[in-house]
């Protein structure tokens, strides 16, 4: 019982410790927003902008 | 180098004697070591096949000439003769690791008159003439269109120093060395003319192109000391040095100098900058305790500098590079700076009839005469008389600023600056440096300015009443201008009080303003007359909390306006009603006109109330009360009574401003 509890605790701590920031920052949404702004600033057409969005770095 | 001919004379003499004795004989001579100041030759051998027009060969295994090491040095003369003069024709000079140089020379008479022509490979010939002996020994070196790259390569130290700048160009040299030898004072006179010279750093930010530059040096040795004059005249070309870009033509430098074992003094220096003016300078370098060159003292003076030309050539380009606002500048200035080993010691800037303005026309100082002295060790008194100024469209009258300047404090004496028919009283303006950071404190009062004069100056419709403000304390800390307490502005017979006013980076890329405003007892008649909104009689209170301006435009606030408490006439004109409804969209106004209400000019009302919460470009509106699906903006009262109800709660803020400007026929100030 105790061991299982510890394992859970450690897992939870690690998970939250490692990924909190990444989870919290909406990377995909930020990329979308960046692409929309880049389209406007560089006056690119929508078609050009749509393709690279599918790629995940 | 100076005593080289003296030492060699013995050798040459011996050769001459040998030649007269047996003119057909071949001759071989060798020396283990020949030494003169700045010259060491080891294992020297001379071999002549004939003393009269035969081939000759000179070999030197190791040579050290002026700090440069050469090995396996060979001179082959196709035709060498000793009579009537020593002459080498068709000579080729070789050294290990160097391409062969062609060399012809002759040496004649008791004065050892030398005529030589040296031609390094791929370069124009260098002519050397002179007398090596006699009362006035001299040597003159002359070459035209020499390659700067090859010239620089002659000095490894110089070559290394300038390698990163890839210099190139052609240079004419005419140099004369005279009175060398023991017991004489050597003189040097040289003229260098650079043509089409250029250089560039790897990133291209330090570069020059098409440089034409004339340099003249005259110097005389006095023991270990050299005294002389140096002048440089930059005729043409362009130069970029980081943020400074200069075009040549009319830029000249001249100075006397004295060089004495690591100590350099420049005196009677003058730098002429075309159209701008002349800087005179003096500078003295010595050696620091660690042996590095260190500036001991310097003084720079500039008289009657043309600020317009200075701005065009130096100040404006520099501000552009840094993204600072451009200035328009004209008038004259005198400047002085003196520096000692610890840094700037005293400085003084005097302005004569200077006009200074923001290039975008936002403000100007029209005629400034100022004397701004500064001393490191003690405070100084500065003054600036300004004959006129304007801020926005508001003209300011003449005023004189007096301040005490010291390295870590600038404090201004109280001053009254005339503004229209009133005055702005600066009670305190002080900047103090603390831990390397400047902080400022300011307090001022604006005497009541008549609104008719102010509105006329601003190009607004004539307004009644007066405008006054009181600002007890403003602090400047780390790019934030913050108001202590409250700023009170008297306007439209009521007042506007601002609290928590903060300007964040007002001169930065994204200036922000934060404030809370309270408006009390604003006379609506005065206000509505002013903005051509249609007359409303009554009084208004308002509160704006969390006001945030970004780049001087509102991005967020929580505003609420309502009729003031108390007893006063409350009348609204039909035009004002129409305009208020028009703010809700185009349809509603037409509806009123068509209805019977169109017969009445004026209506009574009980209360007016409106709120707008601005977030994300949308104004979320509300009124006094809810009625049906809408909100009450004006609650009717008296006869004839009229209520205005709004239905459109969420209004696009830019759209609302647009409608407001259409209604009032003027751009609202908030834009």
């Amino acid at each position, binding site marked *: 019982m105790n061991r299982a509890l510890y394992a859970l605790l450690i897992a939870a701590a690690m998970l939250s410790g490692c990924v909190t920031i990444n989870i919290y920052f909406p990377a995909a949404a930020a990329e979308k927003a960046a692409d929309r702004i880049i389209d406007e600033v560089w006056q690119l057409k929508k078609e050009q902008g749509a393709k*690279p969005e599918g790629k995940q770095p | 180098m100076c005593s080289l001919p003296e030492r060699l004379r013995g050798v040459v003499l011996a050769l001459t004697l040998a030649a007269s004795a047996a003119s057909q004989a071949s001759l071989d001579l060798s020396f283990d070591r020949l030494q003169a100041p700045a010259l060491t030759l080891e294992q020297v051998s001379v071999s002549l096949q004939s003393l009269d027009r035969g081939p000759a060969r000179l070999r030197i295994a190791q040579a050290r000439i002026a700090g440069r090491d050469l090995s396996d040095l060979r001179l082959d003369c196709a035709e060498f003769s000793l009579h009537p003069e020593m002459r080498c024709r068709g000579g080729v000079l070789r050294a290990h690791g160097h391409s062969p140089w062609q060399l012809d020379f002759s040496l004649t008479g008791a004065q050892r008159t030398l005529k030589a022509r040296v031609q390094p490979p791929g370069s124009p010939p260098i002519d050397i003439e002179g007398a090596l002996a006699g009362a006035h020994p001299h040597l003159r070196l002359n070459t035209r269109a020499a390659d700067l790259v090859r010239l620089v390569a002659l000095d490894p130290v110089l070559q290394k120093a300038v390698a990163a700048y890839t210099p190139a160009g052609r240079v004419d040299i005419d140099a004369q060395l005279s009175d060398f030898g023991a017991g004489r004072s050597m003189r040097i006179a040289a003229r260098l003319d650079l043509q089409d010279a250029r250089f560039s750093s790897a990133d291209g*930010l330090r570069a020059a192109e098409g440089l034409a530059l004339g340099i003249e040096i005259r110097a005389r040795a006095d023991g270990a000391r050299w005294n002389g004059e140096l002048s440089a005249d930059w005729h043409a070309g362009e130069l970029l040095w980081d943020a400074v870009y200069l075009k040549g033509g009319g830029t000249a430098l001249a100075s006397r100098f004295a060089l004495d074992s690591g100590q350099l003094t420049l005196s009677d220096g003058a730098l002429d900058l075309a159209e701008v003016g002349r800087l005179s300078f003096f500078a003295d370098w010595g050696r620091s305790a660690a042996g590095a060159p260190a500036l001991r003292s310097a003084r720079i003076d500039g008289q009657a500098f043309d600020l317009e030309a200075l701005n065009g050539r130096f100040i404006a380009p520099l501000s552009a590079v840094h993204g600072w606002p451009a200035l328009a500048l004209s008038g004259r200035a005198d400047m002085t700076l003196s520096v000692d080993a610890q840094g700037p010691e005293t400085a003084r800037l005097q302005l004569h009839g200077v006009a200074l303005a923001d290039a975008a026309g936002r403000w100007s100082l029209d005629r400034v005469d100022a004397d701004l002295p500064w001393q490191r060790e003690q405070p100084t008194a500065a003054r600036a008389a300004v004959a006129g100024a304007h801020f926005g469209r508001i003209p300011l009258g003449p005023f004189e600023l007096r301040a005490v300047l010291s390295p870590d404090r600038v404090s201004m004496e109280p001053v009254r600056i005339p503004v229209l028919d009133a005055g702005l009283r600066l009670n305190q303006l002080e900047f103090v440096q603390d831990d390397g950071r400047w902080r400022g404190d300011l307090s001022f009062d604006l005497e009541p300015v008549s609104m008719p004069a102010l509105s006329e100056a601003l190009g607004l419709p004539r307004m009644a009443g007066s405008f006054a403000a009181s600002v007890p304390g403003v602090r400047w800390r780390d790019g934030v201008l913050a108001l202590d307490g409250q700023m009170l502005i008297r306007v439209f017979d009521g007042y506007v009080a601002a609290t928590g006013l903060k300007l964040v980076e007002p001169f930065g890329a994204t200036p922000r303003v934060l404030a809370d405003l309270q408006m009390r007892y604003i006379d609506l008649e005065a206000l509505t007359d002013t903005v051509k909104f249609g007359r409303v009689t009554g009084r208004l209170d308002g509160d704006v909390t969390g006001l945030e301006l970004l*780049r001087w435009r509102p991005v967020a606030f929580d505003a609420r306006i309502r009729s003031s408490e108390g007893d006063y006439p409350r009348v609204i004109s039909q035009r004002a009603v129409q305009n208020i409804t028009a703010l809700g969209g185009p349809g509603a106004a037409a509806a009123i006109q068509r209805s019977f209400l169109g017969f009445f000019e004026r209506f009574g009302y009980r209360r007016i109330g409106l709120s707008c919460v601005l977030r994300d470009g949308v104004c979320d509106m509300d009124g006094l009360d809810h009625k049906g699906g809408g909100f009450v903006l004006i609650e009717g009262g008296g006869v004839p009574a009229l209520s205005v109800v709004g239905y459109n709660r969420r209004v696009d803020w830019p759209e609302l401003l647009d409608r407001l400007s259409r209604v009032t026929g003027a751009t609202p100030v908030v834009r």
Partner: protein
Amino acid sequence: MNALKRIALLAALVASAAWAQGNLEINTPAISQIKSGMQARHAQLAPHYASGAVGLGADGTVALRDASAVPLAQRQAVQGLVAQENADRAALYREIARANGHPEWEADIRNTFAQRWIERAQPGWYVQSGGQWSRK
């Protein structure tokens, strides 16, 4: 019990993240202003991207990487353009973070933009990665 709490907390975090993955607010007046300034400047910067004088930095800025591609007399002006563009870009990242109520996102937004500018750069433009410039 404690573990349960942790799990609940984690679930909440994941849930909030899922919620946050919608759209970022980029339509505030401040962002529009900065954007239109950058758009106007792009016409002046584009030839310098093409010539290689200006490149896209790894940190979401632009950099004057080879001024020699520009005539000497114009190099100062390009320096000015780069300075202004970088001021606007810094303001843009800050404003997007602020508009979404998370000023602490500024660095993440800057990084995201840095990647996207580079990804979207036209062939022939210079982009920076790991301190090195390369041509797309």
